[in-house]
């Protein structure tokens, strides 16, 4: 194993540059280091101006997504040695406006997230004093997978549809909508259907499946979207065949 590796890091400082460039840094290769450790080595020892987000370093806060050799990755969970002998190319997540260096603008996702109403909707709230809503382990399993999304944005970065049409609600927000739709305690499905069964909603997805491939938490957004399409279609059929209400 070589003891040094070259990082080719995308730099973009809007106050100084009109377009991104690459800067090379040579860092030591250590067995336990992830890409994020190498970036922190650069920031602490070589160039304090290199900018990126990170926080938990255990794959659950969702801050440190970047494009590593062309693939969206959580850099805290991606080992440097996997890229030996290098060089390793580190770029910001794709399909997002870049604010600075490796930091992208998440504003669009944050707005879309609110749009899918990612909260429990009840026609009537049961008083807390009456205890919990019962939910069997099987009912929990029905949505659990979609509740594991850490909002890391790797799926948006991988999604070719979002790349072409920024109006597309996108994988994570749709998976989170399904997380609530499939929750036995929730009654907000019809409300969300209005938002989701549009061209920008689930029908925007052509089932490329890249989102599911890159998801670090096995959420399977593509599966969530396909399932929703089926439900939306059945809903439409029921509406036509049984106009008095099939639901």
């Amino acid at each position, binding site marked *: 194993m070589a003891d040094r590796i070259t990082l080719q890091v995308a730099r973009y*400082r809007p*106050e*100084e540059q009109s377009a991104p460039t690459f800067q090379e840094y040579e860092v030591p290769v250590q067995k*336990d280091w992830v890409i994020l450790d190498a970036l922190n080595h650069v*920031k*602490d*020892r070589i*160039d*304090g*101006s290199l*900018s990126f*987000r*990170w*926080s*938990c*370093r*255990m*794959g*659950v*806060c*969702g*801050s440190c997504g970047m494009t590593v050799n062309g693939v969206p990755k959580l850099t805290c*969970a991606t080992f440097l040695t996997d890229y030996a002998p290098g060089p390793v190319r580190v770029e910001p997540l794709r399909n997002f406006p870049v*604010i*600075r*260096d490796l*930091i992208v*603008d*998440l504003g669009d996702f*944050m707005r879309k*997230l*609110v749009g899918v*109403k*990612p*909260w*429990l909707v009840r026609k009537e*709230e*049961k008083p*807390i004093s009456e*205890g*919990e*809503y*019962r*939910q*069997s*382990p099987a*009912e*929990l399993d029905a*949505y*659990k997978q979609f*509740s*594991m*999304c*850490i*909002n890391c944005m790797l799926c948006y970065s991988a999604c070719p549809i979002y790349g072409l049409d920024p109006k597309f609600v996108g994988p994570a927000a749709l998976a*989170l909508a399904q997380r*609530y739709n499939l*929750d036995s*305690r*929730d009654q907000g499905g019809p409300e969300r259907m209005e938002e989701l069964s549009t061209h920008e909603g689930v029908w925007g997805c052509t089932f490329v499946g890249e989102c599911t491939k890159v998801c670090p938490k096995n959420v399977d957004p593509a599966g969530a979207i396909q399932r929703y399409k089926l439900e939306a279609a059945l809903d439409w059929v029921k509406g036509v065949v049984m106009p008095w209400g099939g639901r």
Partner: protein
Amino acid sequence: MTPTHDVILVGGGGAGLRAAIAMAEVNPQLRIAVVSKVYPMRSHTVSAEGGAAGVVGADDSLDEHAYDTVSGGDWLADQDAVEAFVQEAPRELLQLEHWGCPWSREADGRVAVRPFGGMKKMRTWFAADKTGFHMLHTLFQTSLKYTSVFRYDEWFVTRLLVDDGRVHGVVAIDMKSGRVDTITAHATILCTGGCGRVFPFTTNASIKNGDGMALAYRAGAPLKDMEFIQYHPTGLPFTGILITEAARAEGGYLVNKDGYRYLQDYDLGKPSPTPVLRSMELGPRDRLSQAFVHEVEKGRAIDTPYGPVVHLDVRHLGAKKINSKIPFVRELCLKYQNIDPITEMIPVRPVVHYMMGGVHTDINGATPLAGLYAAGEVACVSINGANRLGSNSLPELLVFGARAGKVAAEYASSRSDGPSSAVFAQAKDEERQLQAAFRGGSGKGEKLAPIRDEMQKAMEEGVGIYRTGASLTGAATTLRTLQERFRNVSIDDHSQTFNTERISAVELGFMLDVAEAIANAAVTREESRGAHQRTDFPGRNDGKYLAHSLVSRNADGSSTVGYLPVTITRWPPGERVYGR
């Protein structure tokens, strides 16, 4: 002049979001701001794993939860606060259930509970072993439906604005633009979490720099019980990633290099094949971390490139239980340690995890400064005393987040006056200082990283699991020198757009202040209690120190330590008994 908002929350983790929702529900007219240096769902609550305690079982009682908490805290907790806490915790956990939190369930659909360290009954609610993650996302997603909650995402607070003993808001940097702005409010609630990053080896995220503690301390509010630092007994070597106590609650063993369950040698009970509550691996964290140090001294630990370790063995639980009850443990071991706990033992060592101390508050989260509140790990109410029990911190941030939210909302609703011109003059001054800062001062210019590294080393060597007067004084002296060097810090980055180096510099200043407060509180307490173990004063001294330490900052940056008696209601100080 009318303030920008009615209430500002600094920090958007579990405590901050719970407080925000509480306020939005109490008074929908209130203009609430959440100012956070990260998007709320990135907050460190996300990393909490094992669970959240709240009495539900028919065989359990509030008194038992209170007694476990009081004795676990070596009688330093305020018992009126503990009683309020155990009473309100179940309701808060149910409230989260009603908001959609995916709690793990029993076959009949009721919420499931598991055992936890130092708890005599099964009362820890859990969402597999990602409890904090699910709680945080549930709170964040629920908060989105309240339109009165306005968010300043990625805004970093540098100063509290104080006039005539009252807090009127904050100065903050909009990280995206680099603009320094003033945000005023009738009330401000600090919910910024702990400060694990003052140590080199910690479970804490990079954002845990004691921001809120330092903001309050500089503004004139005292810090309480700062000498009590929790080492979690089971962190992965090198990364410090937490392996949850739930691994032991589900039946994992701690063994030394001979495969021996060494906790039986430390007055923690006798080994049993299945977990026994308040015994052995389910003893309290302070005692388990201290036992590790003795195993190392006896030469019975395992040496690794990252220091001595012991083994956490969960192999006998089997693949099915590991995958259903502690899947994140397996995921973390596979991804970060390259081992599979189904077939291999997990190397672990104690790791800095939690601050029992924090900003001094009353039972409602109010600090001595009018208009300033604190909740969650940043605060010290105190319910945790000298040692927090696992699974008490998540319900704590709910109970006291909601309490602080309610009283701050009442306070803000009762005020109609706005900030004075003195407040804006202070804000201008802070803006000028920020623009001029970190350009090398009068010296040749110091880099951030070496000062941070030396601070962390001083804390580990002088203020670790076992301390002495000499080790603490040594650390305090080093920290003074580092404060001097910090004045001459010079950063590479002087651009406005998302200048993370400037933020790190301010954070380092916060950490140095907090580290000094910790060292000074620790050197003054000449006894051993809970997580504060002085080898030069090995016994607990209730005659002198059944009291909270209060560190106040003097004008010259030095500190003064005073004491406040502990509130005892029903449980007079006694012996902490585990395993017998």
